[in-house]
Structures are given as C-alpha cells and as structure tokens.
C-alpha cells in the first residue's frame, strides 16, 4: 500500500470524526450551540479541504508537465548521498532542464519501500541500492535493465559484473565495499601473513602480556566478517559457475570450509578466541590495544582514527590455498521498472552521474573505494586505497534470493564452534544441511 493511501485513510478517519463532531451536541435545547462548537465546525473542515489538494499536487510526480521548463525525476537515496545528488546532481541536471527530486530514506528502507511504492506508481525513477538486492528486486520485477553504453569501460569490471543478474545489467556502480585486516602497528610491526602465524602470534602475545593482549578476534555471530578465513582455505558458500552462483551447490561443508572452521575451533580450544564478542566489543578491544588485529570495513575507519591507535590496513592472511578474499559489496544506481521516464533516467545516469566531478563528490561525501576508475585510481587516501587493494580479489556477495537461507544457519554454526559446543565438522555439516532444507522449503 502506498503512502498516499495511508495518508488518505487517515484523512478519511479524521473527516469521519469531524462529521461526528458536527452532530448537534445537545439536541434537547433550542439554544444555539456554544461558540467553540461552531469554531470547530467551520474551521476544521476547511483545513482538511485546503490541505488535501496540496498533498495531491506534491505527491503526483508520475506525469511530468511537458510545458514546464523543468522535467522532474524522483531519486531515492540514503542520508549520506542525498545531499550530493540534490546539490551536485541538480547543478548538472539543471543545464539539461531536468530537476531531480531527491527523497531521503534509510538505505534498507529503499529496498522495502520499492516493493510497495513501485507497483502503486508512487516509486522513484532512480534509486540507490546494493548489488545483492538484485535477486529480490529482479524476481519481483521492480528494476529495469540499464545500458552503460560507452561508459562501461570507465567502471571497475568486478563492480559492473556484480550488477549483472541472469545475464542483464541492472545497475550503475558507484562504490565498492569490503572488509580488510586492521593491525595495531604498535603491537605488531609486520602483519601476520598466514592464519598459522596469527595463532603463533597469539601464543607469544598472550605469554608476554599475561593474557591481557592477544593477536586477533572475530565477532561470534557474524559470518560476513569470517568469510575471508573460509576463502583462504578454499571454502565457499555457493559454487560459482559461469552463469553466477549456483544455489544447488552449498559449500559450507566443503573440505575448504571445514578446514577454515577447524582453524577457528583450534583457536577457540587454545583460548585465543573468546566467545561473545560483538561488533562494539571487537572495536573496543582493538582501540584499547588488547587485540592486535581485527577484520573490519571502512565504516569503522573514523572511530579507529579518532581513538589514536597506530594502525595499518592489510589484505587478509593466507590459509592453505591463498590470501583471504572478503565479500565484495557494490553500491550503485538502479532504474525502477515502474518509471515512466526510463530513457531519461538512463540519460541522467550516463551523462550526469557517470562523470568525474559527480563521482568525486560522491567519494568525498562518504569515502569508500569508488567504482568509477578515474576516481578510484586517483584516490589520495592511503586507507581507502588499502581497502581497494584488500578487496581486489573480493568475491561479490551472492545476490541470489537463496542467500536469505544462509545467514542464520551459518551464524549458528560459527557460534557453536567458537563457543566450543560442537566440533567444526558437526556444526558446519548441520549448517549446510539446514541451508539445503531451507532452500527446498
């Protein structure tokens, strides 16, 4: 149901109530009703009447007035990006006679609201989103294919590929996002190159400090942050084929995944890995100098910088098959399938958003590795460049809808191993079975 309908419903209820207020209060008396009563009766209905048309006017963007000099496109963006699109985007778009009406909402809300507002004709023309939404958005028919034309080469290939779903491109990427290995350079000069070195480092550090300082910690219930360990031992979530991730090939009980889980089990059994660590604790331990290395993303960069810890950002340590590869998340612009101005929206993407000035402004507003090569290559911030480096071989987060069956089972297995309630093999065999069952469900 759209916002308009909710608004209308509430107005209807108000109107019914006003009507009730209009009924004579004391019918037995022949005197005129008290003056307050008439005030209510004369004022309130006119308020409803004057309010209503303005609401309708502002909420009906579907038919752009062709006589007006400005054509309107509605853009849905989150709070960090909407000011940039509003200022910078409109500055450029104004030259073309286009006005971008930016509606700000929470990043996750964009995905949820689109399913409701899009089909009702209240949705945006352009929206910001993450590539791993595609499975759901495409299955629901909410986004339209896009065409980057000759601009394709200016984008990071991995980022463009992440927005390809079932052979079609659905988004123009603007930034990539992945975690990297943060190390406190006061504790370790050189980051550990392998997970075995991490374990050895934990032993020395704990022995030296009497258990106060350890080498590395991880959130007990966050598979996203544990993924590089799995990939470094050859583990995977869904098998990758030429046509994308294959939901019938669940890899959490593959040899590589079990090897990675066994490493975690050994770390926990040796007392190097404490259970019950969440995101806040992990950061507190790192900024407090109690742990040498953690894996986290650009979203924690500000708090780590503020804490004054001397840190370096590195690629993940290696397991038996190579360095850990984190999940790669890609953010980009998509076009609503219910937009009546899809060609125009496409033009705005290609001619206005896919320019160095605009992409640079997007980067400045929220520094994370740009997906636009001219900006990505010119990144001056060494930390952001280090993130880009750590994510160079990142694996795009599976966008297939079956991914929703994965998180809970994976989280539980991880938690059971770290709390030493189940062996790595048992826990991950169960998790893989659970995922297969849920996908069949």
């Amino acid at each position, binding site marked *: *149901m759209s916002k308009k309908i909710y608004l209308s419903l509430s107005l209807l209820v108000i109107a019914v109530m006003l009507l009730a207020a209009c009924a004579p209060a004391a*019918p037995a008396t022949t005197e005129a009703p008290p003056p307050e009563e008439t005030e209510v009766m004369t004022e309130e209905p006119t308020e409803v009447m004057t309010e209503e048309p303005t609401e309708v006017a502002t909420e009906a963007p579907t038919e752009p007035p062709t006589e007006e000099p400005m054509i309107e496109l509605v853009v849905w963006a989150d709070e960090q990006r909407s000011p940039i699109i509003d200022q910078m985007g409109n500055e450029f778009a104004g030259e073309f006679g*286009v006005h971008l009406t930016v509606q700000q909402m929470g990043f996750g809300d964009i995905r949820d609201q689109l399913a409701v507002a899009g089909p009702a004709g209240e949705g945006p023309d352009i929206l910001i989103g993450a590539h791993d939404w595609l499975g759901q958005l495409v299955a629901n*028919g909410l986004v339209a294919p896009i065409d980057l034309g000759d601009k394709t080469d200016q984008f990071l290939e991995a980022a463009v590929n992440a927005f390809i779903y079932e052979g079609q491109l659905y988004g123009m990427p603007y930034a990539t996002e992945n975690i990297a290995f943060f190390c406190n350079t006061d504790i370790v000069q050189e980051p550990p190159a392998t997970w075995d070195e991490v374990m050895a480092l934990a032993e020395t550090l704990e022995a030296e400090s009497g258990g106060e300082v350890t080498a590395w910690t991880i959130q007990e219930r966050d598979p996203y942050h544990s993924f590089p360990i799995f990939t470094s031992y050859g583990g995977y979530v869904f098998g990758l084929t030429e046509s994308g991730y294959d939901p019938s090939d669940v890899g959490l009980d593959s040899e590589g995944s079990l090897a990675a889980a066994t490493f975690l089990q050994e770390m926990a059994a040796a007392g190097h890995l404490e259970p019950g660590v969440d995101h806040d604790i992990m950061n507190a331990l790192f900024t407090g100098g109690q742990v040498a290395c953690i894996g986290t993303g650009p979203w924690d960069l500000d708090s780590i910088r503020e804490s004054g810890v001397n840190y370096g950002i590195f690629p993940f340590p290696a397991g038996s098959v190579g360095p850990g590869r984190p999940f790669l998340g890609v953010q980009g612009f998509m076009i609503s399938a219910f937009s009546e101005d899809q*060609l125009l929206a496409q033009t705005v993407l290609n001619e206005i958003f896919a320019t160095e000035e605009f992409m640079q402004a997007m980067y400045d507003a929220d520094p994370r590795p740009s997906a636009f090569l001219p900006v990505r290559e010119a990144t001056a911030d060494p930390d952001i460049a280090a993130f880009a480096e750590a994510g160079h071989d990142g694996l795009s987060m599976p966008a297939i809808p079956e991914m929703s069956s994965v998180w809970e089972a994976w989280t539980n297995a991880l938690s*059971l191993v770290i709390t030493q309630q189940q062996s790595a093999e048992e826990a991950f065999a169960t998790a893989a079975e659970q995922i297969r069952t849920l996908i069949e469900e």
Partner: protein
Amino acid sequence: MTEAITGTRGRATPLVPLSNFLTRYVLRLLGLALVDAFAVWLVSLLIRDAVWPLAAAVIAVTLLVNAVNLSDRLYPLRWMSPAFAIIILTVLYPIVFTVYTAFTNYSDGHLLTKVQSIRRIGQDRFLPEGGVTYRWAGFRSSDGEIALWLVGEGGQAYLARPGQPLEEVTADAAGVGPLDADGFPESLEGYTRLGLRDLLPILDSQLAPLEFGEPPQTIKIKSIREAAQLQQRYVYDETQDVILDQMTGALYTADDRQGFFVSETGATLNPGYQVTIGWSNFQRLLTSPALRGPFIQVFVWTIVFALFSVLTTFALGLFMALVFNDPHFPARKLVRTLLILPYAIPGVIGILIWRGMLNQHLGVITTNMVNLFGWAPGWFTDPFWSKVGVLLVNLWLGYPYMMLVCTGALQAISSDVYEAAEVDGASTWQRFWNITLPLLLVSVGPLLIASFTFNFNNFTVIYAYNEGLPPIPGTPTPAGYTDILISYTFRLAFESGRGAQYAYAAAITIVIFLIVASITLFQYRFLGRWEEVSESV
C-alpha cells in the same frame, strides 16, 4: 441516550433557530459530502491499483457513515460511527486480509498482479543477431514530425522517419548544413535540429514509442546517443495465455496454480504473479521439516516462557503493590513513581540497555559478578542462563503494569472483610491467602490471561534480547534455545527459501492464533472456577 432520543423528537418543533438549523442540516450535509467526495476519490485510486479488498472496506465504511448520518432512526449510532469506522479499517480489515493472504502465494517473486507482471515482462528488448546500432540526432519538421539523422558504424548516414524506409543521405547533399563535432548536420532544410533540452522532455513520452524505418527491421531509440534495430523480447498472446520469447523462440505458458509463466523445459519468467493457491500454505507448514525438528522443545519453552513471565511479573507486581499500599511506607509516592519507570521506557530501548549491562565482556552486571564471585553466567551463550536472562528482562519490563493493576484492585477490596477476619483472629498470612488473593484474582484474572496470550507471542522481547539464540545444535532448520513459536516460525517465513514469504507467514499466524485461542479458552474455563471460589468467600 434517552436524552438523545427525545432530542430527535424535539427537532419537530417549528421554531428552530437559524444557527441550529445550520448545524443540524447544512453543516452535516456539507461534512457528509466531504467524506463522500473523499471516499470516491480514494476508492477510484484503490480500484486503479486493483486493491479490491481495501476498496470494498472503504465503500462499506462510507455507506455506514452515510446511513448513520442520514437516518434519524440510527441517530444514537452517530457518536459511535468514528469508532465503527476505525474498527472496520484497522481491526476487521487486517484480519480479513490476513486470512485472504494465507490462501495466496503472495511472496517475493509474486508481488505483482498478472497484468502488472505481463506488462513488466513485455518491457524487455533485445538486439537480434545482425541488428544494427546507430548514433542519432533528432530533427523536427515544420508540421511536427520527428526525424532522426542516423550514423551507422561504417559512417554512412541515413534520414529516418516513422513508418517510412530509411533514406541514405550524404553530408554534401543540398539543404544539409555543416556537420558538428559529432558528425551530425547543424541544420537540415525543412527541419529544425532538436537540442538536448528539446529532446529530454519528449524522450520517453514521444520518442520512445516511435518506430523508424520499415517493419520488420524498425529502429527504436535505445538511449540518448544510440538507436538500434531493437525488438520486443517477450510478446504476450492473450488468446492462448502464453508468452513467446522472440529471441530464443521458447514458449512460456501461464501456470495459474504457481503464478509463473513456465516454458516446456521448466524455466520461469521473472517476475511471477499473485494467485490463490488454496490450502497449500497450511499443507506446507504441516509437512515442514521444522515440525519434525525441535518443534516440541520450542513449544514447551513457549508455554514456560509465557507462564513464567506472567507468574514472575504478577508476583513482583503484587508484592510491590502490597508494600506500597501501606500508608506508613516512607516517600512511597516517589518510590512508586520510580518503580513505574520501566513501564514508561519503550520496550526495545529497555532491552538494549539490559543487553549492554549483561554483555559478556563489558557489561556492568557481568564484570561485577566476575569481580565478586569469579564467575558470571553466559547470559547470551548458555542455553539455561539465556532463558533466565530473557525472563529477567521481561520481568523488569512487565512488573510495573502488574503493580498498577494490583494497586487499583487492592483498593477495591472492601475493608469490612478484613475487619471481620481480624475479629475472627486470622493471621496476616491467612488474610492474604484467603481474602486478598482470591478477591484480587477475580478482577485481575482476565488480565493475567491477556498477559499470558501477549507473552505467548512476545516476539519483540525474544528477538531484541538474543534473536532466539543460542543455537540448538543439529536441528533440521535453524532454531535457538530461547526461540518461542512465533520467532521460530518467523524464520521459516522470512529467512528461508527464496526471500520473504508473506502468504506463508499469514498461514503461520492463523495456526498460531488457533493455538493461542484454544489455550485461552481453556484458561477461561479454569478462571470460571476461581469465580466460584470468590463467591463462597
């Protein structure tokens, strides 16, 4: 009410002051007209979006409001009409809609109606093998016709008009102006060149539907720079209810049982559409592997959780109420106010604070316990202690309510009974056990049942505290030790298969409602006995 009825009769007196006439008729009709106009607009909006059930509900409410305000016989209902309107729209409608949804396949992949789905699938275009792509510039003739100047990959130029064959043109032909940097003529005789500002407003509304050149190889606008021999990929045939894939030749037949267009090989087209599927959702729930798993364990914990939540909150609330009922308690108003505070804090925030205090590494409770006793329970990792933890948090959230309720109920018990008991030499304990508690339960009993029902489905506390965790090892589908029925099944509907499955969730809701309803009925029987007890006091 009697006053109101005499009022209607009194209306017949001929001497009605003008102001009264205004309020009685003019304003009422004006208000009614406003409501009706509004309803008509809303219903037309709903019908356009094919939201039939809500449209029907709004029509019903509007008719009711009209009847009540126009008929003198229904006059007493007039004051009730807002309540009726709200009940229909916010209580009855959601119930009816939930039941209806349980019999559909409404879920991710099946959000759209069939018409919307066909329209969306029909949007896809493709470039056939050997199809040509051109760069283009737009021109408008004096009579308003649009023409494109096309430049092919080899550099040859054409003038294309809708429905007419392509006309090969050269830059040195008569009437063609000098070429700009992109290779397009700046002017053309009989035409005006369209700049970007002219093109953009008409791009989607006027240019996109145009087909240039002769069929079947017509040229369509692909983007602001390119035009190509694009063709519609999926064509819907209404007579046979099939979709033809023009690129591969595959035929997709509508399968109205599963809400998909399906090819012979079993491939489906995105997006699917909404259909009613009968009892399938219920069938699926009953045959779900989740029921073979820890279902009994989860069910028992649900009852234990609900029961203990009621008992602990009631016991503490009653104790507090008794203590503060004593007028000699120092600063009792202040303390009582402070004790009610948890009730005023939004539940989720309260739980978050508790999560922080119980946190295994940084929490103030845990670190103090470790300092004092050298040990602290795993409030979130240990199966037993996480259950204790969630009950404690729920106790903190719930006792102020019980305290308020009991305070009121205690004051309603007549002091005569106590005086009589005192004369008979009853001890304090006997007085509480034989007088206070039975009499209290008569008035508070239904509230306890309501509290049980509420806690039976208290998703918020379970999810905000620990998301139902810690995990139970070796279950067929993920389940946690603190999972109650609603959080366990929530996961089946929203964290499994192919995304959110609203219809399945609706079916689960109905089944859980039936369980709760039967438990509640049973409890009311039980409560009936209490009433007999109280009568004999």
